[in-house]
């Protein structure tokens, strides 16, 4: 299997709380370590990735975290301003228009304008070049919103192209769509946990990305997996120790769920599934991300 390094835009999504930011942080770190100038984007949320990597928060400006690794939390107000300045060209004009209370009112209700400018900023960085003609960022890792929001977020260019009359918005949307649907540029990584709902959401997300957004699922990550530890014989031997039996049984059940979840993902996604074990660390920081990264080596670098 080819590694993610062949692609430039890595979209990470899945159900809320499954470890999207964790996986995005690990993938971005690996890309940076491979010598690629890498930008990791969070979208209008409580920033997690800079914190996981034990750096100060990046905020809404692209900020260098460490060698080859930049981060940004893309926020609507700032993105709207950048977009506004690009279209209107003059700060003064921007102010008159965008700082008008009533205009702000309308902008909130223009369907999908907010998503469009958020995604627009990410796509802008994807095409940004250095003076010497190289890409400013070789890799962009998008820590996308959770399933439902991710689908509506990523479908925005398609929806706009189909519904909005010809104009500046639809032209922008068209450009974004072309990049998103290009399989040589964009790849999705779906994150799940070994539980029923997160796995089902990953499958739904896969189908929606394929049918509505035309983004291919490159791989899935089964996070917080529990490896097999107790055999049936072990469990039987523990029957006389009810408390310990309960603990062992729970561990065993979770391990079985892990196997089931892995199989279900593999069968339905037709994509490789990478397993990241549940980690037991007092705090979840850089050490944790480095460990997660270790389990995603083949996903980034490709199978040798």
């Amino acid at each position, binding site marked *: 299997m080819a590694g993610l390094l062949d692609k430039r835009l890595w979209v990470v999504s899945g159900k*809320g709380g499954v470890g999207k930011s964790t996986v995005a942080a690990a993938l971005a770190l690996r890309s940076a370590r491979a010598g690629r100038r890498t930008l990791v984007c969070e979208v209008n949320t409580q920033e997690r990735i800079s914190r996981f990597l034990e750096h100060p928060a990046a905020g809404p400006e692209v900020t260098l975290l460490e060698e080859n690794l930049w981060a940004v939390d893309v926020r609507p107000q700032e993105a709207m301003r950048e977009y506004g300045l690009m279209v209107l060209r003059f700060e003064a004009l921007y102010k008159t228009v965008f700082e008008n209370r009533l205009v702000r009112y309308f902008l909130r209700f*223009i369907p*999908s304008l907010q998503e469009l400018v958020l995604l627009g900023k990410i796509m802008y960085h994807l095409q940004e070049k250095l003076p010497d003609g190289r890409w400013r960022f070789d890799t962009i890792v998008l820590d996308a919103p959770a399933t439902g929001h991710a689908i509506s977020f990523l479908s925005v260019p398609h929806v706009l192209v189909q519904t909005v009359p010809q104009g*500046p*918005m639809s032209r922008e949307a068209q450009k974004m769509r072309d990049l998103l649907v290009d399989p040589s540029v964009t790849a999705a990584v779906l994150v799940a946990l070994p539980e029923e709902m997160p796995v089902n959401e990953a499958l739904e997300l896969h189908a929606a990305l394929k049918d509505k957004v035309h983004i291919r699922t490159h791989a899935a990550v089964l996070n917080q997996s529990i490896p097999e530890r107790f055999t049936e014989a*072990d469990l039987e031997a523990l029957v006389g120790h009810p408390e310990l039996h309960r603990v062992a049984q729970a561990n065993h059940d979770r391990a079985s769920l892990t196997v089931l979840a892995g199989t279900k993902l593999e069968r339905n996604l037709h994509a490789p599934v990478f397993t990241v074990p549940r980690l037991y660390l007092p705090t979840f920081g850089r050490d944790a991300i480095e460990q997660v990264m270790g389990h995603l080596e083949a996903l980034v670098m490709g199978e040798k």
Partner: protein
Amino acid sequence: MSTTALGPALSKKRVLICVGSGGVGKTTVAATLALRAAVDGRGSLVCTIDPAKRLANSLGLSALGNAETQVPSSALEPLGVTARAPLHAMMLDMKQTWDDLITRVAPPDQRERILANRFYQSLSTALAGSQEYIAMEKVWELRRKGEYELVVLDTPPTAHALDFLDAPNRVLDFLDNEAAKWLLAPALKAGKFGLSLFNRSGYVLRALSKFTGTEMLQELSSFMLSLSGMNEGFRERARGVRALLEDATTGFVLVTSPHPERMDEAIHFNTLLKQHRMEVVALVVNRVHPLPTEAMWADAATLTPTRRAKVEETLRELQVLAEQDGRGIAQLQAACPGIPLIQVPRFGLDVHDITSLWQTGRYLLGDDTF
């Protein structure tokens, strides 16, 4: 006899709203509370949002939701108890509920036009807070009809707590005629319909249309016009929803995971609820890992070496998780003084049937504790 703050809430409140980040257990807690209330004698309804399929099945809900359905008494048989009042459940279909609302408040000749308008589509699906709003509006409607002594509302996964609390205001904002009048003023005066790109505000509007195209603005103003007929009905409801949230018979149950890294979200939510003068009846910390006891370690020491190693490894892992949870809970307690905190353990398997809901309820109401 219940010993937690949820006991009095279940017997006195008319509406309980379960809030919190995605995946923490809101749906589970909501279903559990309604079940307990019914068993204890108050007719209740749980209004769920995207329940796991197996949970829906065990409540007797089929794929087609949005209707209030009585949970058959046979479903409670495994518990060995009979409910003293009926338990109802429903799955809220938010798009459908929006359409129903429009159908109810729009003038008949405007309905189709509104339902088909793309600004309506964005109001009903994409506008931040619109899903939250329609869920609350549904509860307001149910409460007004008064068929249930208690309505327990589950809520959609909300990206920002504020989206939730601000939802009624945003809807009221949307109906803010002032802006529409400004956009349309001269045209309205002239008795025709169109955009006033060339009046006093035209300069700003022309710049705005560079972003959106003129057609988009035309369409928006036309939508505002068609809404104007129903503004009052709509507003009155939105005001009703806002009042319901602050009502003394409404309580919030804030559900959170015990994880220290995620505690900031719960604390933030609690602060916002307080600022909005909404009552948090309890903080439910769900999926807590209990600390392995001394007796367990001692017992493990009597096992054969390989089994002992496996068991001790597992206990060590649980110890790490329990200590982590302990730190999170301490943080939460310190940040939310005076609010009752209730812990529910992480069960071996998912909570998808009546029996495990019942088990969850024993912790929520203090029959069982750590």
